[in-house]
C-alpha cells in the first residue's frame, strides 16, 4: 500500500494507511508552499506489474512524476527502483524474458508501450546515464555528436554548436574545450560521467534517467554532478536512483521509497526526510533498516 502524502498524517505501524488516523491529531498549519505544488505531471505510471521471467519484480506501481523536477528513487538493493527506472525508457525491452503483465507508463499522456511507439525514438526523449560512465572509445567530440550523426545531421557548424552547448550544459566545456579530439576515455571518472551527461543532453531529451550516477565518483566529482543536476532541472525532468540518502535529500524535490518491488511511500523530499509517514521509510532513511 502506498502512502502518498503532502500533508502529514501519522501512522502507528508500517504499511498502514492513514485513513483511520484520528483527525484531531493533525493540524492546519501555515507552511511555505512547496515549489512542487506548481509542477505538472510528465510521467504517469499506473497499476504497473513487471516480471523478469517468472519472478515478479514490480507490484502495482502507481506514481506520477513531475515535469522539470528531480525525483529520487531510493530503497535497498533489489527493491525494484532501477528496474522501474529502466521501464521508463523501455531499456528492459533489451533483456530476454521481461514482461509487463498489467498497467502502463505514459509520458506526456502517451503510452510508451503502445504499438506505434518506436523505442529508439523514445530513448531520445528519455535519455539515460548509468552508474559506470560509459563513453564510447571515440573522441570527446564524437561522443557528443554520436546521436546526431545517427539522426543524419551533417552540418559541421551545427555539430560544433551542439558540442559546445552540451558540454557547457554538462559543466565540462571549460575543462575539455582545448582537447575535444582526444579520447573520451582519457578523462577522469567524474569528467567521463559528465561527458555521458553531455552526450545524453545533446539529443535534447525531455527526461534524463540517472542510475546511481555518482556511486563510482569521489566527493568532488559527486558535488559537480549534483550541481549539474540542480542546473539541468531547469530544462529537463530528472529521475535519479541513488543509495546515498544525503544525495537524495540534497538533489531531489520528491522522493519515492521502494521495498521488495513495491512503492512504499512517495512524497516531497522534505517530508520524507523530516517526517516520513511509513515506519519502513523512516527506518531506511535513518540507516536502521533490517
Amino acid at each position, binding site marked *: 500500500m502506498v502512502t502518498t502524502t503532502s*500533508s*502529514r498524517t*501519522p501512522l502507528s505501524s508500517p504499511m498502514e494507511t492513514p485513513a483511520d488516523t484520528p*483527525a*484531531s*491529531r*493533525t*493540524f*492546519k*498549519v501555515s*507552511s511555505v508552499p512547496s515549489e512542487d505544488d506548481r509542477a505538472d505531471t510528465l510521467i504517469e505510471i499506473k497499476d504497473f506489474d513487471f516480471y523478469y521471467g517468472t519472478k515478479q519484480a514490480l507490484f502495482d506501481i502507481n506514481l506520477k512524476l513531475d515535469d522539470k523536477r528531480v525525483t529520487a528513487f531510493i530503497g535497498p538493493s533489489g527493491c525494484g527502483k532501477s528496474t522501474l527506472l529502466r521501464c521508463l525508457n523501455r531499456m528492459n525491452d533489451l533483456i530476454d524474458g521481461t514482461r509487463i503483465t498489467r498497467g502502463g507508463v505514459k509520458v506526456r499522456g502517451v503510452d510508451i508501450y503502445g504499438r506505434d511507439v518506436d523505442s529508439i525514438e523514445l530513448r531520445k526523449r528519455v535519455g539515460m546515464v548509468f552508474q559506470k560512465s560509459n563513453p564510447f572509445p571515440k573522441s570527446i567530440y564524437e561522443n557528443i555528436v554520436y546521436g546526431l550523426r545517427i539522426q543524419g545531421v551533417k552540418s559541421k557548424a551545427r555539430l560544433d554548436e551542439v558540442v559546445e552547448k552540451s558540454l557547457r550544459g554538462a559543466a565540462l566545456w571549460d575543462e575539455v574545450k582545448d582537447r575535444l579530439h582526444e579520447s573520451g576515455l582519457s578523462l577522469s571518472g567524474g569528467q567521463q560521467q559528465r561527458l555521458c551527461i553531455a552526450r545524453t543532453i545533446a539529443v535534447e531529451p525531455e527526461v534524463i534517467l540517472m542510475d546511481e550516477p555518482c556511486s563510482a565518483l569521489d566527493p568532488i566529482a559527486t558535488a559537480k554532478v549534483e550541481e549539474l543536476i540542480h542546473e539541468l532541472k531547469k530544462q529537463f525532468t530528472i529521475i535519479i536512483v541513488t543509495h546515498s*540518502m*544525503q544525495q537524495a*535529500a540534497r538533489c531531489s524535490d520528491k522522493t519515492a521509497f521502494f521495498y521488495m518491488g513495491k512503492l512504499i511511500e512517495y512524497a516531497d523530499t522534505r517530508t520524507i*526526510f*523530516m*517526517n*516520513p509517514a511509513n515506519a519502513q521509510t*523512516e*527506518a531506511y*532513511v*535513518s*540507516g*536502521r*533498516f*533490517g
Partner: protein
Amino acid sequence: MKRFFDSELETFRSGLIRMGEVSIRQVRDAIKALVESDVGLADQVIAADDELDDLEKQIDNEAIRYMNLRAPIATELRLVIVGMKASHDLERVGDEATSIAKRAVKLAAEPPLKAYVDIPRMAGIAIEMLRDAMDTFLSGDIEKALAVVRRDKEVDDINKQLYRELSSYMIEKPGNITRALELMFISKSIERIADHATNIAEEMVFLAQAQDIRHLEELKKSGRPAVG
C-alpha cells in the same frame, strides 16, 4: 536495526529528562522558600542553578556532535533539534527560579504584604504545565501537549489580576511599594515559566508530528485546533 551510536541518543534523552526534573524542583523550592520565608532553601536554589547551566551546555554539545557525525534524519533529527530548544527553555526556567529565590531572600527580611495565595496557585499551574510538557517528551501524547498550550492563559490571567491588586497596594501606601514590586516581579517570573512550559509543549508536538503549532491563535481561543 540497532546502531552502535544508539546509546548516544539515550544519553541525550536522559540529559533532557534530568533538566526537566531539576528545573521543576528549582521552581517548587523557590516558591516554598518564598512562602515559608526560608532563606536557607532560597540559597540552595540559587546555588543549584549551575547544574542547569551545565546540563544545557552538555545537551548542546551532544546535539552538535550528533548532527555533525551521525547525520540524523527524520525522528532523530527532530529529537536533536527539539532537545536543543527545550534545554534552552529549561535553563531559562532555572533562571526565573533563581530570580524568585533572590527576591524571596529580600522579602523574608520583612513582614509579608499579604498572605501568599495567588502566587503559589499560579506557580502550581506553571509547575503542572512544565511536568505535563516534559511527560509529553516521553509519551508523545499530543492532546496533553495541547492542553499545556491552552493552560497558559490561566497563568496570564492570574498575573494580570495580581498586577492590578499589587498596584492598588502601592497606591494605598508607599511603604508597600518595595514589597509589592518584588511580588510583581515574582508573578512575572512565574508567568514566564508558564511561557517556557508552553514552548516546550509546542516543541514536543513538533517532535511527535513535525508540525509547527507556534502562534496559532485558534489554538488559544477555541481550545481546539483546526482539523485538517
